[in-house]
């Protein structure tokens, strides 16, 4: 694995909010096709780290590069177009839009018909919209959501909303998918389905996945490597079994032994 060039290279990245160092000197390398977990206690800076990767925050130190291209100071929409797409900890669907329209929004940056062609209803508009429609329906089928395509996103049950959010992130055609606590609030049955879904999309889309999760059986079960964050710093990394027995990790989660 070490011989390959990394897809994502994060080099001593950090961000400071006033006096608070939310994340500091984090190094992460992700290789094509990997499924990597990012864990840590609440407030460790996991979501902040995602926000740094996707351009919501601009890092105050360090560099982030995707396939050798510097991503720092690029706006979020450009980073998505370069190939990093994400889901959110608290679901952020376009709730008043239909299920299929949610997916079509993700296709927007690939669409070629201009505003003018849409206003004048030129042939390129119809062609572009039809292509989007067909692609979106095919896509929803993979996720078993095609029967809900005209339903408003907010009317879907929770588990399906999560599924749609992942579908929407994938529709943006990413190379790297960031999942922020996809199993949060799910019952065991839904979590199980989610694990299958993650396995399926990796196979199907030839994807690298970085996953934040609190559900340890899920993380240990699916991830090949795990990074552990605590107080904004990377305290451990390695294979699941190494992480499980790492004293620093146990300390971060359970606190120090009382002596």
């Amino acid at each position, binding site marked *: 694995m070490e011989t390959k060039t990394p897809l994502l290279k994060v080099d001593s990245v950090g961000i400071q909010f006033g006096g608070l160092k939310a994340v500091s000197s984090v190094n992460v390398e992700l290789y094509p096709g990997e499924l990597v977990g990012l864990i840590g206690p609440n407030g460790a800076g996991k979501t902040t780290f995602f926000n740094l990767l*996707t351009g*919501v925050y601009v890092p105050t130190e360090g560099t982030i590069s995707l396939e050798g291209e510097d991503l720092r100071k690029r*706006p*979020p*929409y450009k980073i*998505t*177009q370069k190939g990093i*797409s*994400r889901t*959110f900890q608290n679901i*952020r*669907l*376009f*709730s*008043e*839009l239909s299920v299929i*329209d949610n997916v*079509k*929004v*993700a*296709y*927007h*940056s690939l*669409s070629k*018909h201009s*505003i003018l062609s*849409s*206003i*004048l*209803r030129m042939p390129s*508009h*119809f062609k*572009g*919209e*039809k292509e*989007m429609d067909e692609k979106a329906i095919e896509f929803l089928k993979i996720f078993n959501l095609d029967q809900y395509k*005209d*339903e*408003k996103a*907010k*009317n879907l049950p929770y588990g399906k909303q999560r599924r749609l959010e992942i579908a*929407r*992130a994938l529709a*943006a055609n990413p190379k790297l998918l960031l999942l922020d606590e996809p199993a949060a609030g799910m019952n065991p049955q839904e979590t199980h389905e989610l694990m299958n879904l993650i396995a399926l999309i990796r196979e199907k889309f030839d994807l690298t996945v970085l996953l934040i999760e609190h559900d340890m059986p899920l993380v240990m079960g699916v991830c090949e490597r795990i990074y552990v964050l605590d107080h904004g710093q990377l305290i451990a990394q390695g294979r699941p079994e190494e992480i499980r027995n790492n004293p620093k990790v146990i300390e971060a989660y359970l606190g120090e032994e009382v002596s």
Partner: protein
Amino acid sequence: MTTIKRAKGFWLSISLSLIFFAIVQVLIGGGSLNPFYQNTLMFIGINIILAASLHLIIGITGQFSIGHAGFLAVGAYASAVMTMKLNMPFTVALIVGGLAAAIAGLIIGIPSLRLKGDYLAIATLGFGEIVRIVLLNIDYVGGASGMQVSHLTTWPWVFASVLVTIIVIRNFTSSTHGRACISIREDETAADSMGINTTYYKVVAFAIGAFFAGIAGALYAHNFYIIQPSNFGFLKSFDILILVVLGGLGSLSGAVLAAVLLTVVTTFLQDYPETRMIIYSLVLIVMMLYRPQGLMGTKEITSMFKRKGGSSHGNKNTAA
């Protein structure tokens, strides 16, 4: 299949509106529609354009702008200068009015659309006031005493402008560009992370909205014999805002319906000047109590025909 069906509905509504146009035109020509009703009709048309253009900014893109009278003023004055000072034909004045307002929209939109919610509202309110004060102090356009404008607005002009406005806004909205705007309204962070250039689409929606407000301004200016800066104060902005909110945020047909309804109500209340504002306010209060989502909610009139009774999901939203 659905596209064919939709196209059919589209041509049907176009032909229906053309028939309506012809009937009114014949009535005006035959002299059976007195000037009072003619004027009301034109006023309805102008308000429809204003409501539809603000609907694009607030209802679709979710940018809470309350300086719409500013664009109306820019359009009104720019077109009046064209016809009165430069002796241009009305067509040119109409287009210049729209373009001037669109440029004003770009100038105010590019810096202020970084702001969100209340902050944007205050910035746009400020813009509206700035326009008014600037006009108040330019002697070329008459300052406080206003500007004489000849009566050039006619029913065909108003009708054509309304039709173009509605078609353009509807076509824009029901395309990938409109979806991009709606995604900004729904969740800007998520839209950003889906690869939507949010700033660009906010500015585009703002400019298109401003353009049509400018067209409305041109029609407005040439419908009266005089325009004054005091016609374009922030109360005018609120009047337009009320149309959009009353119609239902996010519904074009709602905005149109509200424009028709409220214009008619205000026109007939002119006979009772002392109780006019009270009744008007009561209508709004009752409306917001019993239908806070507005006349149409987020639905369009066309969707009512599409799904009548058939679909099982039809009424799911009414409870929510």
